[in-house]
């Protein structure tokens, strides 16, 4: 694989990680007054998938979406301002961390109702098909979303209409504190479920960005070739608590040993080591990246903090879209 792409994959993962870590350390200032679901530990999937997309391809996601948003090229300043509840935020303060959007890169939105964007993203793909556009729509979803009815309904319709949609399942083994084992039978296999609907299915190693990249590349080629939808799934692990800036292993819902095991498989650190070993990158470049990202993040935080809050009258605006005149 070409070196520039390897560096880009590393850079994008590192950027998401540093944004999330900065966010975690600033959260205690109590100025980000909305729930945040940090994705540290899961960066490889967002980056490996989005590296295969064009700017006009669509992405939709869920509550844990900072990584998807940034990997698709979403504006960091607007994301931070949104989390700080500011007028300059991507939703002008009406969404927060769980509702990110950047139409300039066709990031069409994330919402926190589990599986809520699966049919919406499927419908976006349906819309592009009806309009005769050649675009791919990606929907990121978690393991619990595959338990919701709309998951099956969307697979079914996507397959029926051969829609250009890619479902990316990130299995981090927990829905809040409920482990997979109390939610899905051991015998269950989502790949079989997707295949059973006639949907192209594949699985990769979720913490290995190169593997994610390759699995996504094949699936997206399948879609771009007009062969219909694809479902790809990856195991991964969130390092921090379900919601908030801290670590929550002490609650006892997951074992410290399990956490340590996944820490060893950290997608950023393992890939960094691999690149250094193969001399695809040097330490100096890594340091330059870190400094660059840190100053970008510092600026984004400053931008967010210095931005004005929305006017009180904004409570009442945008409830309804205004009718076009002379229609």
């Amino acid at each position: 694989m070409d070196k520039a792409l390897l560096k880009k994959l590393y850079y994008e993962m590192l950027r998401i990680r540093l944004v999330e870590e900065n966010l975690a350390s600033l959260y205690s200032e109590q100025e980000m007054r909305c729930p945040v679901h940090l994705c540290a530990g899961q960066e490889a999937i967002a980056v490996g998938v989005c590296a295969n997309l064009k700017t006009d391809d669509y992405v939709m996601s869920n509550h844990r979406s900072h990584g998807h948003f940034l990997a698709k090229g979403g504006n960091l300043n607007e994301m931070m301002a949104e989390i700080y509840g500011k007028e300059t935020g991507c939703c002008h303060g009406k969404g927060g961390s769980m509702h990110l959007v950047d139409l300039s890169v066709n990031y069409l939105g994330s919402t926190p109702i589990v599986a809520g964007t699966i049919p919406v993203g499927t419908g976006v793909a349906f819309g592009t098909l009806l309009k005769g556009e050649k675009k791919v729509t990606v929907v990121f979803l978690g393991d619990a979303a595959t338990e919701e009815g709309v998951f099956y309904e969307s697979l079914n319709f996507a397959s029926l209409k051969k829609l250009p949609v890619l479902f990316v399942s990130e299995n981090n083994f927990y829905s809040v504190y409920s482990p997979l084992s109390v939610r899905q039978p051991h015998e269950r296999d989502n790949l079989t479920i997707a295949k059973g609907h006639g949907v192209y299915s594949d699985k990769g190693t979720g913490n290995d960005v190169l593997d994610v990249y390759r699995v996504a590349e094949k699936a997206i080629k399948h879609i771009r070739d007009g062969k219909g939808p694809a479902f790809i799934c990856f195991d991964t692990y969130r390092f921090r608590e379900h919601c908030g800036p801290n670590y929550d292993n002490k609650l006892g819902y997951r074992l410290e040993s399990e956490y340590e095991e996944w820490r060893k498989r950290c997608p950023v650190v393992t890939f960094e080591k691999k690149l250094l070993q193969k001399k695809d990158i040097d330490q100096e470049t890594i340091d330059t990246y870190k400094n660059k990202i840190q100053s970008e993040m510092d600026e984004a935080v400053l931008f967010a903090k210095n931005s004005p809050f929305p006017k009180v009258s904004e409570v009442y605006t945008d409830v309804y879209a205004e009718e076009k005149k002379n229609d």
Partner: protein
Amino acid sequence: MTREITYGQAILEATDQLLANDKSVYLIGLGVPDPKGVFGTTVGLEKKHGSNRVMDMPVAENGMTGIILGSSLVGMRPIMTHQRIDFMLLSLDQIINNAAKWHYMFGGKMKAPIVIRLIIGRGWGQGPQHSQSLQALFAHIPGLKVVMPTTPYDAKGLLIAAVKDDNPVIYIEHRWLHNIFGSVPEDFYKVEIGKAHKMAEGSDLTIVSSSYMSLEALKAADFLKKDGISVEVVDLRTIKPLDKETILSSVKKTGRLLVVDGGWRSFGVAAEVMALATENCYGSLKAAPVRVTFPDTPTPTSWALANHYYPKAIDIINSVRTMFNLPVKTEAEIGISYDVPLDVPDKSFTGPF
């Protein structure tokens, strides 16, 4: 040119013209292309406009609602139909969590121009899960618009307005209105959403009603005229946004308000209209507002029970007479008789749905 066509034909004509007029419009719903065509309202459209624009769908109400929403985000203007409102309750998640809030929660950056046609009804033993009237439920949700046309003219004009509107619109049609005739222009026209229609002018009392119950209200108004009571009938046409101006100016003029709603009594449309009047023109009221509604129970199936479940013109008449301190009367005394059983809309209806 204007001619007499039925309410169902008016919906069909509006849909046909919308499909012809705008490439982004498509029609989707269970049974849309089947021979019966959603009570005749979609017959022939697939043949004329093609199966890419007029289509059936999987039995997956919630997922399909999310799907039409998604298509609207990239420029399509879907019309979805449900043959019974009860089935679409499965899609409340996508309607309330997503469609209603999409414009607001993303700071006005996107819009969700979807129309969901819902058929409500009564009679022939439709029972608890085939005859609910849930306009109040949808009207409670910020971000949704709710229309309930009563006449064929409004059925066409409101459907066109709903599809042209940039917001999610819930379009509720009563099964018993599908076969009524009325004057409908052949033109492509809109009836403005949010505007009520005075079906009868009067000076002694205002009846605010909607959908099929407006026909019962008109019937009652005719009989009340014989008692010397002049009734103004305000047909809401749009439940949300409510036409406050028309309601309030009428109540201020007549000083009396009776609300007739084909829905459950508590926390409903009637309660909202009464609250509107008491909050805004209490001083003009000569009597406490009264409501005529369905009782707070599910719909029974047996026609022996259902005949007593739905309010009729006689119930409206007696509520009005009571407001004027007149004794209640029986249907026989007033001269109301029925040429068909109470569980069918007209002679042509012989079941099963």
